[in-house]
C-alpha cells in the first residue's frame, strides 16, 4: 500500500513537470513587445525615441496645453463666453469663491502644464547620454526642452499662486513661489539660448524642430515677458529690444491632425465642420468694460470678431454676454497661431517705462501700438486705431491704457488674467457679486486630486 502511494506521487509530479515544460518553452511569450506604443526605456535611450519625444513635446504644447491656456483663463478673464450648459463650464464662467477644486477645466490646465514640465525634464535628463545623436544636435534638443519648460513655468505662475518647478512621480512635488518660478524660467531660457547657438543643426531642423518655431526670438520674447512679470524692468526692456519684430514664430497646424485649436474649440461660423459644435464664443467688445471700449478700434476688433451676433444659450441677454463668432488666428483649420505676438515687446517696453517713471517714452510706445507707425515689418499685425493716446500722463491712466491695448492686441493669448492683476485692474471681491466684465478669479484653486495626493500642495487662494 505504501508503494502504491509513492507511485501515485511520482506519477503526479511527472505530469506536473511535463505540463510546465510545455508551457514555459512554448512560443506564447510572457514578455510580448507592445507594437502600439514605445516603452519609456526605449523612448529615452534611443536616437529615434529622443527625436520623436522632442517632436511630441512641441505638439503637446501647441495642441493640448495652448488649448487649455486659451480656453480656461480666457473664460475667467471674460474674453470668451460659454455657449453650452456643461456644469464644469458654467461653474468656470461663474467663477468666484465657490469655484470648486474639482473643476475639470482647471485640472486639465494644471495637468497639461505639469506634463510639459515632465516631458521637458525627461528630455533634459536623458538626452546627454544618448550618444547615437551628435553632440550639437543633442544641444539643440536640450534647448527645445528648456524653452518649453520655461514657457510652461511662465504660464503656470500666471494662473496659480505657486507652481511645482519639477514634477515628481512619487507624488511629493515641491512648490515654489512666484519669484522663484520666474527665476527658474529665466535660467532655462538662458540655457536654451546658450545651447541653441551650438545646436541649430540641419539634423535638428529636419527631424525635431518645428518649421514654425523660431527659437532665438521666442527665447528672447519669453525672457522679456518673464522679466516684466518679475519686476526686472530694465532687463525686460533690454530683452524686448533684442527681439526681431518681423519674425513670425508660430504653432503650426494642418487640415487633418492637429487642427488649429481655436478653429476646433471656438465658434467659427462658415468654416467647414465646426460651425456650431463648440462650447465657447467670443464676447462682444472682447469682454472689456465700457470705459475701455473705443469705437475707433473697429479694425482691430474686427480682426478677431466675425459679424454674427448671437444671444447667449441660457440666461438674460445682457449686451456683454452676446456672443460673436471668432476669426483672428482661428479662421481656418490649418492656420498657424503665433507663439507670441511681436507687438507684445513694445507693450512690455511701454509698461516697464511707466514703472520706471519714463512716461513720455511710454506714451510714444503706446501710440506705436495704437497707430502702428514705423512698424511696417511687424509680424502678425492686426491693424491700427487711427487716433493717438490723448489721456492723462499719470501712472494709473497709462497702466489702464496699457491694459486696454494688451486686451485688444493680445486677445486670446491666455495672458489677460495676469495682465489685469499686474496692471492693478480691480478684481473680484470675496462675498460680492462679480460684474460681468471683471475677471471671476485672481488665481485658481489647486486641483483636488493634487491636494488629495500631494501633501506639499499650498493652501488655496480665497478668490
Amino acid at each position, binding site marked *: 500500500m505504501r508503494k*502504491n*502511494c509513492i507511485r*501515485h506521487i511520482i506519477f*503526479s509530479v511527472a*505530469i*506536473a513537470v511535463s505540463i510546465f515544460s*510545455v*508551457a514555459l518553452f*512554448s512560443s*506564447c511569450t*510572457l514578455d510580448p513587445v507592445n*507594437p*502600439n*506604443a*514605445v*516603452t*519609456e526605456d526605449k*523612448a529615452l535611450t534611443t536616437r*529615434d*525615441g529622443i*527625436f*520623436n*519625444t522632442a*517632436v*511630441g513635446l*512641441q505638439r503637446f504644447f*501647441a495642441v493640448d496645453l495652448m488649448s487649455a491656456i486659451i480656453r480656461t483663463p480666457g473664460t475667467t478673464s471674460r474674453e470668451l463666453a460659454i455657449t453650452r450648459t456643461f*456644469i464644469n463650464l458654467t461653474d468656470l464662467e461663474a467663477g*468666484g*469663491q*465657490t469655484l*470648486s477644486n*474639482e473643476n475639470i477645466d482647471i*485640472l486639465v490646465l*494644471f*495637468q497639461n502644464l*505639469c*506634463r510639459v514640465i*515632465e*516631458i521637458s525634464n*525627461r528630455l533634459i535628463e536623458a538626452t546627454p547620454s544618448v550618444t547615437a545623436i551628435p553632440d550639437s544636435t543633442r544641444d539643440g534638443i536640450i534647448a527645445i526642452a528648456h524653452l518649453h519648460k520655461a514657457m510652461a513655468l511662465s504660464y503656470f505662475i500666471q494662473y496659480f499662486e505657486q507652481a*511645482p518647478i519639477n*514634477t*515628481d*512621480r512619487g*507624488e511629493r*512635488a515641491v512648490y515654489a513661489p512666484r519669484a522663484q518660478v520666474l527665476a527658474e524660467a529665466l535660467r532655462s531660457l538662458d540655457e536654451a539660448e546658450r545651447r541653441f547657438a551650438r545646436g541649430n543643426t540641419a539634423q535638428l531642423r529636419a527631424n525635431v524642430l*518645428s*518649421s514654425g518655431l523660431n527659437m532665438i526670438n521666442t527665447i528672447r520674447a519669453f525672457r522679456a515677458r518673464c522679466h516684466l512679470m518679475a519686476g526686472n524692468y530694465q532687463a525686460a526692456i533690454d530683452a524686448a529690444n533684442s527681439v526681431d519684430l518681423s519674425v513670425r514664430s508660430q504653432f*503650426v497646424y494642418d487640415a*487633418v*491632425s*492637429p487642427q488649429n485649436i481655436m478653429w476646433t474649440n471656438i465658434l467659427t461660423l462658415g468654416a*467647414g*465642420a465646426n460651425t456650431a459644435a463648440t462650447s465657447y464664443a467670443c464676447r462682444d467688445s472682447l469682454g472689456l468694460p465700457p470705459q475701455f471700449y473705443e469705437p475707433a478700434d473697429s479694425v482691430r476688433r474686427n480682426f478677431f470678431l466675425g459679424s454674427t451676433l448671437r444671444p447667449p444659450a441660457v440666461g438674460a441677454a445682457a449686451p456683454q454676454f452676446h456672443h460673436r463668432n471668432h476669426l483672428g488666428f482661428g479662421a481656418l483649420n490649418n492656420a498657424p497661431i503665433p507663439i507670441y505676438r511681436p507687438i507684445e515687446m513694445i507693450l512690455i517696453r511701454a509698461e516697464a517705462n511707466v514703472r520706471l517713471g519714463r512716461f513720455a517714452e511710454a506714451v510714444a510706445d503706446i501710440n506705436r501700438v495704437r497707430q502702428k507707425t514705423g512698424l511696417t515689418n511687424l509680424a502678425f499685425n492686426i491693424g491700427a486705431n487711427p487716433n493717438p493716446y490723448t489721456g492723462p500722463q499719470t501712472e494709473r491712466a497709462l497702466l489702464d491704457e496699457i491694459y486696454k491695448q494688451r486686451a485688444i492686441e493680445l486677445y486670446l493669448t491666455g495672458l489677460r488674467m495676469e495682465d489685469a492683476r499686474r496692471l492693478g485692474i480691480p478684481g473680484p471681491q470675496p462675498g*460680492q457679486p462679480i460684474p460681468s466684465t471683471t475677471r471671476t478669479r485672481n488665481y485658481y484653486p489647486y*486641483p483636488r*486630486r*493634487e491636494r488629495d*495626493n500631494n501633501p506639499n500642495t499650498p493652501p488655496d487662494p480665497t478668490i
Partner: protein
Amino acid sequence: MGSARLDIAPFEGFSADATFGYDTYTQNGTISIPPGNTSFDFRNGFQRFATQSVRQVNIDVNARYFRELSDWLKSTTLIGGTLQYDETDILGSQTINTTPNVEIVGGGVTTIANETRDVMRTIYGAFIQQTFGLYDRFYLTGAIRMDVSSVFGKDERFQFFPKVSASYVLSDEAFWKESALGNTINNLKLRAALGYSGGLTVIGAFDRFTNYAPTNYDGKAAILPSALLGSPNIRPERQREVEVGIDATFLGDRIGIELTYYDKLLTDLLIRRNVAASTGFSQQLDNVGTVSNRGLEVLLRTTPVQTNDLRWDATVNFFFNRNEVVDTKGGIIAIGVYGFASAINGQPLGVFYSSAYKRDANGNIQFSPDGVPLRQLNPDGSVQLKVIGDPNPDWQATVINELSWREFSFRLQIDILQGRQVLNFTNRNGEQNQVLAGYREVLEGRRAPGYYTNPRFAVEPENPGVFRIIEHWIEDGSYVKIREASLFYNFSNIFGIRSGQIGLIGRNLFSFDRYNGYDPELNAFARQGVPTGADDTETPIPRSLSLALRINF
C-alpha cells in the same frame, strides 16, 4: 473555430485528456449618418467603419487517478494545466463632412481617426488537487493552483493559490439512519472550505508600463507619454474566502435547504486611481486597499403539492452581502460614476460621496424662502462633501413558483432587491437641460425659476439649485419585479406530431418601486467587482411577450 480533444485511459483508475482549441473571429461595425441630418455635431454627415479581429488559443490538459488505497480510504488525484493566449487587432476609421450618397469613410472630406491595436495576453495555469474519501462520508480535499500572466511584471507574475475543503455526510452515519431524526432529515451534509483566488486578466496587456503613444507634428514622427503612469510592481488582486455550509433535505426530499455563510477578504484591490497632477500623469494602476465581503445565502426548495395531476414546486433564493472597504491608500479614491462613487475606509465600496442637502439638527432639509433646497457648506464657505448614498443592496431574493397540472405548466419568477440607492443622472441632466417633464413645474410657476440652477449661485453658494446638490438625485432603487411569467400547454401524438409545446412567456412584466426614472435596475457604469449603481440615459430593460411553439416529429 475548432478544437481537438484526446482522451486516454491506459490503465485502471487513470484517465487523461488534452484539449486544443483555436478560435478566430472578426467583428465589423459601421455607422453611417448622411449629411443634412438634424444632429448637432454631425450635420455634415458621419461615417465610421471599425473591424476587430480576435485570435484565441486554449490548451487544456487534465489527468485523473482514482484508487482505493484500502477498503475505507479512497483517493482521487487531479492534475492539470492550461494555456490561454489571446490577441486582438482593432482598426477603426471615421470621417465627418461626407459626400452625399456615399457610405465609405474615404468619401469624407477629412478622415479624423485611425486606430490600430494589437493586444496580446498569455496566461498559464497549473493545478494539483488531492481528495481523500474516508468511510464514504468524510471527504478532505487539498489543492494548489499556480497561475502566470503576462499582464503583470516578472516579480508578481507567478501566483500560488492554495485551497482546502472538507465535507461530512452526517446522515450516512448508522446512528443517524437509525434514529428518529433520520426519518425527518433524510440527508444532512456539513461543509467548510478555505481558499485563495485571484484575477489575472483584470488589466490590459501593457497597462503596467509608461507607454509613449505615437502621433505626429509638423510632418514629423512624434511620441508622447500616455496619461497612465506605469506601475511595474503592481500585483494581482488576491482573495481569501472562508465558507461554511449545511445542505439538508427533509420529509422524503419534499423540502431541501442549503445554507452558506462566506467571509471574503480581497486584498490589493487593483484600480486605476487618480494621481497628483504634479507627477505629470493623471492616473496609475495601483493596489490600493482591502475589501471585505461577508454574506449569507439561503436556498430553499419545496414541493408543497404533489399528486398525480398536480405538482407545485416553490424555490426561494435569499442572499445578503455586507461590504466594507478598509486600509485604502491615498485618502478617498474616486472609482467611477464621474468620480461620485468612491472607496472610503469603513464604508461599502462604491458609496456616493458628494454634495448634500443642508439639514437642521433633526435632519430636516432646509429650504430657501422660495422653496428651493439648500446645500450644506463647510464653515470656510466651501462645499461640504459627504457620503450620500450606497449602491450596495441590503438584501436580494428570487422566488420561483412552478405549477404543472395535466398538460399545463405555469412558472412565475419574482426578483426582489431592497435597500439600494441609485444616482439618477438621467433626471438630473434631463431636467436641467429642460427636456424632461420635471422642468415643466418651473415653466408652470409651481417651482422657483432657480429651482434647478440658480443664476445667482456664484454669490449665493448655499442656494445653487438642485442640479448642484447631488444628494437630490439619490433615489431609493429598491424593487420587486415580476421577472418572468410563462404558461405552456404540452401536447403529443396529434397530426403526426410526436410531441410539442405551445406557450406564452412574459419577461420583465411589472416593477414595483418608488424610483422616478425608468428603471432602478439600470447601471450605466457596470464594471466587474465595483458596484456603481447609476442611471445615465440608459435604455431600460425591455418588457417582452413572446409566443413559443416547439414541435418534435
